[in-house]
């Protein structure tokens, strides 16, 4: 069993999903990006997006969190929570919802900080500049002046793996951590 894996939550807060020299496979849609981590650093929690004012009982437009974009050859591991009273749907990329079930799409509210203080259920990954989109619902009878989202995590700089190493990983001869950096519409019947 690997010691580091996505959405991990032991006693304490967040852990990196991989360390330097670890192999990772960043899945974006149907593309597998086979990479080796060559550098990583923490990104302390910061306000990554303010969707802005939302009228009473309306849904905002879907807004891209460009502040969560990374440079080429990099991926990010983030956890997040909203601090204003709204329900937020999460999309990555713009048309692929996350937290998706057959009949509904899960939302995040500020209450997540008491239900899941480590935020491990909110964890997501970003490949390069394919950053997520947020859509907020003001469920109140009052207008909302702002809708702010706080995110933090880790930034990883990676290099490409050789085909020989990829083959070893696929044959089970070398370890690799798989991370998902996009939503999935599932497999049609």
């Amino acid at each position, binding site marked *: 069993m690997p010691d580091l894996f996505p959405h991990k939550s032991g*006693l*304490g*807060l967040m852990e990196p999903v991989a360390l330097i020299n670890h192999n990772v496979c960043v899945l974006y849609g149907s593309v597998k990006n086979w990479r080796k981590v060559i550098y990583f650093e923490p990104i302390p*929690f*910061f*306000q*990554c997006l*303010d969707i802005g004012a939302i009228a009473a009982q309306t849904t905002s437009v879907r807004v891209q969190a460009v*502040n969560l974009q990374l440079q080429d050859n990099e991926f990010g591991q983030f956890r997040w*929570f909203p*601090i204003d009273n709204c329900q937020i749907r999460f999309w990555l990329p713009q048309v692929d919802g996350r937290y998706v079930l057959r009949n509904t799409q899960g939302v995040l509210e*500020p209450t997540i*900080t008491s239900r899941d*203080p*480590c*935020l491990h259920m909110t964890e997501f990954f970003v490949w390069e500049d394919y950053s997520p989109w947020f859509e907020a619902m003001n469920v109140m009878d009052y207008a909302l*002046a*702002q809708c*702010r989202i*706080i995110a933090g995590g880790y930034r990883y700089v990676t290099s490409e793996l050789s085909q020989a190493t990829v083959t070893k990983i696929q044959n089970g001869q070398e370890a690799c951590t798989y991370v998902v950096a996009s939503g999935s519409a599932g497999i049609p019947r």
Partner: protein
Amino acid sequence: MVVELLRGTRLQGPVTVMAVAGVANAVAIFQVSTFAAQVGTRTFRLKRIKGLNAALADTLIHIGTGVGVAFVDSIPPLLTINGMNFDFVEDDLPEVEWSVDMTCYPVAATVTIQVEVEEYM
């Protein structure tokens, strides 16, 4: 383990002497952080009000936003007693959130006031 992810930063406004009464003379008693280079936007909640009524009469103080015709009460007016200190703490105050500067005016001057707030990013 207690994790308080929603907690803000406790700050205080300046000691403000409101020597002129009336809504036209409302003054900022706490200014929200708005540095152009800061990341994100901030709001704050009122946590404590401390002051002195030197108006030579009991008087109301209004706390809200804006000045003059733009002034809007954010909480009900508070009655202060002539010659006395007043001290409203968190349990006395509604959990109103400000996203712009907090302003205040007394119906009769002079009233000195200072507020404590918790500012959120």
